[in-house]
């Protein structure tokens, strides 16, 4: 009897994992705060088990700054890499770390942690 129960729980757990990790869980894109004079735009990105927000919308042509704040102690999220922009920087834990992003060209630019496990993207438009 107990074995049937264990089997049932195992199957349920597997189903739960599939639903939780592979199901569709959309996150909303966040647009940057553009300063009043359109001189710059800023977004704060919290790094804790991922990037929140993970999709950032920036206005084209306005110098942008992403303020990464890493709470996560894991070395997995220690670096942030923007492969298209040649940015590969270490994020100090529990400190704001500013990264300037080139917004001269519209497009989607992915970023990821140093091991390419966590992803985010910047949309310039």
């Amino acid at each position, binding site marked *: 009897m107990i074995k049937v129960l*264990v089997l049932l729980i195992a199957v349920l757990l597997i189903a739960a994992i599939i639903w939780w990790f592979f199901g569709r869980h959309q996150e909303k894109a966040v647009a940057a705060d553009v300063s009043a004079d359109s001189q710059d735009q800023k977004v704060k990105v919290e790094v804790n*088990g991922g990037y929140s927000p993970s999709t950032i919308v920036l206005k084209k042509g306005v110098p942008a700054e992403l303020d990464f704040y890493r709470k996560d102690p894991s070395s997995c999220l220690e670096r942030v890499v923007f*492969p298209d*922009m040649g940015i590969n920087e270490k994020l100090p834990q529990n400190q704001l770390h500013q990264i300037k992003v080139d917004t001269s060209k519209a497009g989607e630019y992915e970023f990821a942690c140093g091991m390419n496990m966590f992803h985010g993207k910047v949309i310039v438009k």
Partner: protein
Amino acid sequence: MMSIKKRFWLALMLALPMLYDMLAMFFNWPMIPNGDWVALILTTLIMLISGRAFVQSAWAAFLHHHANMDTLVAVGTMTAYLYSIYALLHHQGVFFESAAYIIVFVLLGQYLEDKMRTQASQSTTRLLQLQVKNATLIKDGQTKEVPIEDVKIGDRLLVRPGEKIATDGKVVAGHSTVNESMITGESMPIEKQAGDAVIGGTLNQTGMLEYIAEKVGKDTMLAQIVEIVKHAQSSHAPIQKLADRIADIFVPVVLMIAIAVFAVWYVFLDAELAKALTFAVSTIVIACPCALGIATPTALMVGTGRAAKLGILIKNGEVLETASHIKNVAFDKTGTITLGQPVVTDVIGEQEQALTLAAGLESLSEHPLAGAIVKKAQDQKLTLPTVTDFKNLTGQGVTGIINGQTVFVGKPDLASQPIAKTLQVKMNQLQSDGKTVAAIGQAGKVIGLIAIQDVPKPSAKAAIEKLKQQGYHTVMITGDNEQAAQAIAKQVGIDEVIASVMPGDKAQRVKNLQNQGVTAFVGDGINDAPALATADVGIAMGSGTDVAIETGGIVLIKNSLKDVVRALSIAKKTFARIKLNLFWALIYNLIGIPIAAGVFAHWGIELSPALAGLAMAFSSASVVASSLLLNVAKIDE
């Protein structure tokens, strides 16, 4: 938060008594009294001090529907830990030490990995350190130290022996030797005097130099190199895509496998609860997505970094991957295979007289070939005569009066008498070698011939031979006529010559070559831009500070063709290393997971969770170590 190093040492200290207990059981030494309770206390401390971070980030990731390495470590250790508490209360066998040792080993692996990754990325740090902080400005006859940011284009700067040159510029006074190896990879010091270009960040050695700043800030060669290397090191290689896709789903899949492993052992194979759990925990712990994730980036970092040290800039991972598949290497001729500066190769007739007259006339001409003749005369320390009545006859040559006699350099028919038979034969012979031949005439008679040719670079022959040895098909594409092209091709031993190509058609010729295989085009970047862009890999050769950064996928800072061989060799080696790393990371998981799951338990092959943790820690550390080995791999040249 404590550093990884501290967390590791603390965990190790706390875990040592449990290690003693394990050994004591094996060797019949006195055991620690109340061992299980001691283990509970020590493991609890380890979990709290060293292991908490894993659980924290695993939880944070879980809330984002993510799972990573920390998830595996957290789930693995928590399972072992919580089960052991349950078992302790029910007086059954415990395995606290598994949780403790998993944490010790994983931290050890991360610590080693972190250290090696810092080493792998040191090439950009090294380049950044070349940047000079201050410059000595000369103003109104006075010298003044100023921060480098204040230096403007046109400023006159001074550099003393033993100091670094502050920024890119041109020498106006002084004489010295400069060590440029840190930028160009050229190991020999280079002599500098007025008119020569200097590169910011290079080391002035013997004398003082005054120079005018020509480029500052992000336009300097050093800044551009840093930019390229940074880009290259954060770029991706296409081969990585599969690994990334696997890494994305890896952790949840492993969790599901572990649950299945537990269920199969416990429900179907009637294993004890503890045994079934051990297999599940081992499975979770041995799985390592990190090794997959870092297989490509670390190799790319070391490979492109090593190349940069040699003055070879590989723009990104994609270029590197393509470069490792190249079949054809096509070269531009002028300036790439040859020096791009014609030199006098033969003087026929009375040497000194002929050359003196020719150089005297040509010193007034602006024809591109005139410089070669004047230079030859200067090299032989001839005194040039005074010329009056100088005339430039377009398409024919130049004439003038020297010592009261009419003199000319150009076509033989400028003479009133026909050219001597022996000279005519000689002329035909020189022309068939692809040389440009001019007649020298005096008083209506041809008295000598002068042959001019663009000669191959000293490095060309050896480099092309090496490329051929390695199985590349070498091609020369040039606008020159067939004869001149063949002459050069013969000298350097190139396989195929495509001559008389209009500048605009070079790209089309490259396209034709691409039908026969992956093609690289080597050019000097400025007029070859379309061909460089068309080729699968464009290799731009920059001379001095004029690095053709934009055009090529690979930029060679030095003007030596040997670097083409080096660049392709580094690309091949790095790509091979990436493949090896990926293979190792995949195979490791493919073999490790079934062993940990107890598939081979029937034959006595099992892995305890602690050993699984050790194996995992070393899988990612070994991938980084393998990438670092690229630093000492042999590079062909």
